[in-house]
């Protein structure tokens, strides 16, 4: 594991992922898990400019090393029971910490993934006039680390409708 240079920089949006060189070497693991492969694939596609349009937010340490990435874009969610649809709410497509910093502890006792997700929520607040709307993500049932992360940041869980499927993790508006 590499050492993190603290303090971490505030999470920021990268406007031109294809020109953000640290993305080329980003990997959150050797790809043992499907969700890690997904994040790696998203990073590669963004760097090669083959990804669909999405916002890339990055967490870097004090030395500028890329610690983690998160991507999201606005997406609709339809609700039954005569409720209004949730329109254009941020859907988190990928979130991951580079394998070099997996398991790292921050000086304040936190984890890099927490700093990343908290920073992403701040970015989203900035895009929505200071208050986050609903935010959601899909998380594989077996991805315990992912579920624990979303638990710690106020995301509730909508059960997967098929065994072993992906659950929706959704955070109510601020």
């Amino acid at each position, binding site marked *: 594991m590499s050492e993190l240079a603290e303090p971490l920089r505030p999470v920021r949006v990268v406007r031109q992922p294809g020109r953000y060189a640290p993305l080329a070497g980003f990997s959150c693991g050797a790809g043992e898990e499907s969700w890690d492969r997904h994040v790696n694939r998203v990073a590669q596609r963004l760097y090669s400019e083959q990804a*669909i*349009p999405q916002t890339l937010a990055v967490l870097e340490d004090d030395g500028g090393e890329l610690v983690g990435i998160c991507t999201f874009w606005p997406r609709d969610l339809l609700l039954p029971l005569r409720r209004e649809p949730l329109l254009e709410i941020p859907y988190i497509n990928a979130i991951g910490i580079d394998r070099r910093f997996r398991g790292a502890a921050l000086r304040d006792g936190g984890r890099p993934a927490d700093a990343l997700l908290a920073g992403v929520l701040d970015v989203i607040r900035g895009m929505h006039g200071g208050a986050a709307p609903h935010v959601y993500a*899909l998380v594989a049932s077996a991805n315990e680390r992912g579920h624990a992360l979303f638990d710690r940041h106020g995301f509730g869980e909508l059960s997967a409708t098929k065994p072993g499927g992906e659950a929706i993790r959704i955070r109510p508006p601020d």
Partner: protein
Amino acid sequence: MASMSMHETSEQPEAPRPRRVITTSEASLERLEAEPDTVVRLSIAQSEQLRRIEADAREAARALAASRAED
């Protein structure tokens, strides 16, 4: 008098393409990325879960505000 080209006379505004709606059991990380315009529809049970999540969050915010007011 100016004449109109064939292109100009046949041009029609494009109708918005209807978006595909899928259930959450059909949704996956890969599919949502491959089909960014696809819309996910929650089940009735999931919608009820969301209602409870929202109510819990409101209650927690109220409790936090009350404890701050006491301080």
